[in-house]
C-alpha cells in the first residue's frame, strides 16, 4: 500500500510535474491575494484566454512561448484599457469582447497550422509532459515574480488598499500597477502550462479568497494563500498520477474544496461560526 503511494515519486516526469506545479501554484496564489482585493478576479481569466494567440504564434515561429504569450498579454491589457477609455461600454463587456476575440484568433491559428501546437494542450495544460525548456522558462518567471513581490509586497498592498494614501506617501501608483499587471501576465503564462487556459482563473483567485476568509491581516493572508496554492498544486499533480491525467482539473478541484471548507468552518468569517454567534446572541437576550 505504502509502496504504491510512493510510486509517483519514482518517476522523473512526476517529480518534475509536482515541483513545477507547486512553484506555479505558490506564485499565482501570491498574486491572488491582491487580485481579489481589488475586484479584478476576472482579469486573470481574460488574460489567460488572451495569451493563446501569442502561444500559438510563438510555437509557429519557433520562439520561446513565454515571449509570445507575454506580448499577447500586454496587447490584451492595453487593448482593454484603450477600448474602455474611448467608448461608453462597461468594463465587463470590454473584457469579454477583447479576450474572446483574441482567444478565437488563437483557435483559428491553431486550426490552420495544426501541427505546431495542440489546442488541447493550450486549453487543458499538459504539465505531465512539460519539456525541459518550458520548465526553465516557468522557473525563471516564477523566481523573478517571487523576487519582485517579496521586495514590493508592502507598496503594492498600500496601492491596492488606498490609492490616494499611497500617492501621498510618495509611491508611484501607476508604475506599481503596471508592474503588477506585468507580473500577472507572466504568471498567467506559467499557469497556462500547468492547468490550461480555462483554469488559470482558479489559480489566481481561489487561494487568496480562501485565505481571506481565515485572517484579517494581509501579511498572514499572503502566507496562507501561498501555502494553499503550493500545497494544492503539489497534491493535485500527485493525485493526478492515479487518475491518469487531468492535472489541472484535480488541482482546481482541491482548491475549490479547500475554499468550501474555509467558507463553512472558518473561525470568524465562516457560515457555521456566524450561525453559532446568532444563536448565542438569541440565547443571551432571553
Amino acid at each position, binding site marked *: 500500500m505504502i509502496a504504491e503511494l510512493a510510486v509517483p515519486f519514482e518517476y522523473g516526469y512526476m517529480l518534475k510535474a509536482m515541483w513545477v506545479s507547486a512553484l506555479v501554484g505558490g506564485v499565482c496564489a501570491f498574486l491572488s491575494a491582491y487580485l481579489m482585493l481589488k*475586484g479584478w478576479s476576472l482579469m486573470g481569466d481574460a488574460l489567460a484566454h488572451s495569451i493563446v494567440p501569442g502561444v500559438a504564434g510563438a510555437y509557429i515561429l519557433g520562439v520561446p512561448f513565454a515571449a509570445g504569450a507575454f506580448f499577447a498579454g500586454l496587447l490584451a491589457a492595453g487593448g482593454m484599457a484603450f477600448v474602455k477609455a474611448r467608448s461608453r461600454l462597461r468594463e465587463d463587456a470590454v473584457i*469579454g469582447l477583447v479576450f*474572446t*476575440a483574441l482567444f478565437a484568433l488563437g483557435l*483559428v491559428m491553431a486550426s490552420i497550422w495544426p501541427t505546431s501546437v495542440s489546442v488541447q494542450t493550450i*486549453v487543458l495544460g499538459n504539465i505531465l509532459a512539460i519539456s525541459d525548456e518550458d520548465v526553465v522558462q516557468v522557473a525563471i518567471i516564477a523566481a523573478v515574480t517571487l523576487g519582485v513581490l517579496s521586495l514590493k509586497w508592502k507598496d503594492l498592498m498600500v496601492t491596492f488598499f488606498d490609492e490616494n494614501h499611497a500617492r501621498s506617501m510618495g509611491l508611484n501608483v501607476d508604475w506599481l500597477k503596471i508592474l503588477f499587471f506585468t507580473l500577472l501576465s507572466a504568471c498567467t503564462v506559467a499557469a497556462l502550462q500547468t492547468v490550461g487556459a480555462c483554469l488559470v482563473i482558479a489559480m489566481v483567485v481561489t487561494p487568496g479568497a480562501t485565505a481571506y476568509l481565515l485572517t484579517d491581516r494581509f501579511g498572514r493572508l499572503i502566507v496562507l494563500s501561498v501555502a494553499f496554492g503550493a500545497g494544492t498544486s503539489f497534491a493535485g499533480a500527485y493525485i493526478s498520477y492515479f487518475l491518469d491525467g487531468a492535472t*489541472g482539473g*484535480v488541482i482546481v478541484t482541491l482548491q475549490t474544496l479547500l475554499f468550501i471548507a474555509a467558507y463553512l468552518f472558518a473561525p470568524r468569517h465562516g457560515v457555521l461560526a456566524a450561525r453559532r454567534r446568532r444563536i448565542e446572541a438569541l440565547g443571551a437576550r432571553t
Partner: protein
Amino acid sequence: MTALIDWFAVPLSYPFMQRALVVSVLVGAVCAVLSCYLVLKGWSLMGDAISHAVLPGIVIAYVVGIPLAIGAFAAGLSCALLTGYLKETSRVKEDTVMGIVFSGMFGFGLVIFTKVETDQHLLHILFGNVLGVSVRDLIETAIVAGGTLAIVLLRRRDLLLYCFDPNHARAIGLPVRMLHYGLLVLLSLTIVGSLKAVGIILVIAMLVAPGATAYLLTDSFERMLVIATAVAVGSSALGTIVSFHIDAATGACIVLLQAFVFALAFLFAPKRGLVTVWLQRRADAKAAT
C-alpha cells in the same frame, strides 16, 4: 461575378454545410438578442461563468443517462444561483466568488470526464462541432432558440426596465425577482442551445460582441436589438462559409468576424466612432480658424 456566387454556392451544395449555416444563424440571433440585455445589465461575464460551469452537468447527465441538455442546464443555472448565494453569505466579492464557482465546476467536470468512458469529444463540447450537427440537433436547437427568442421578445420591455433600473422596475410593481431569475434561466437555456454550434468557450463572445457593437451605434433599445441581430446573423453566415474555404474552426471564424464588426463600429460609428470624432474635431478646428 460567377466566382463570387460560386464562393457562396459551393459550400452550400453540401448538406452538412446547409445544416451548419442554419444552426449558426439561429444561435447567433438568440445570443445577439440576449447580449443587448447583458451589456446593459453588466452581466457579460455571467455568460462566461455559466458556460464553463455547464461541463460537469454534461458529464453527469451522460453517466446517469438523462438528456445532456438537461444536465447542462441544471449545472449552468446552479452556478449562477450558487454565486449569488455565496456572495450573500460571505465577505468575498462577487467577481471572485464567480471565478471560484465556475472554475471549480469546470475543473471538477474535467476530472470526472477523464474517469468516464463517453462518446463525447471534449474538444467538441468546448468548441462546438457545427459541421457535424445532425437534423435532430438542428431541431433541438431550433426549439430552444425559438422558445428563448419568443419569451425575450414578449417581455422585452419588462426585461429592459429591469436591466436599466431595477429600483424603478420594483417601484412600478414589476416582479423583479422573477425577471432576475428569468433572465438567468434564459441565459442558461441559450448557452445550452448554443453548445452544438460554438461550444461553451466561444458562446461568451456571441453573448457580448453583438450587443456591444449595437450599443456603440444607437441610443434606441429597439434599434439596438435589430442591429445586434443583424450583426450576429451576418457574421454567423459569413463565418461559416469562410471557415469552409480556409479550413479553420467554424466557431472561431464567426467570433473573429463579430470582433471585426465591433472594431469597425468602434472606429467609424456615426456619433461616437474614434475616427468620426477625430475628423469632426479637425473640421471644427478648421472652421474656427
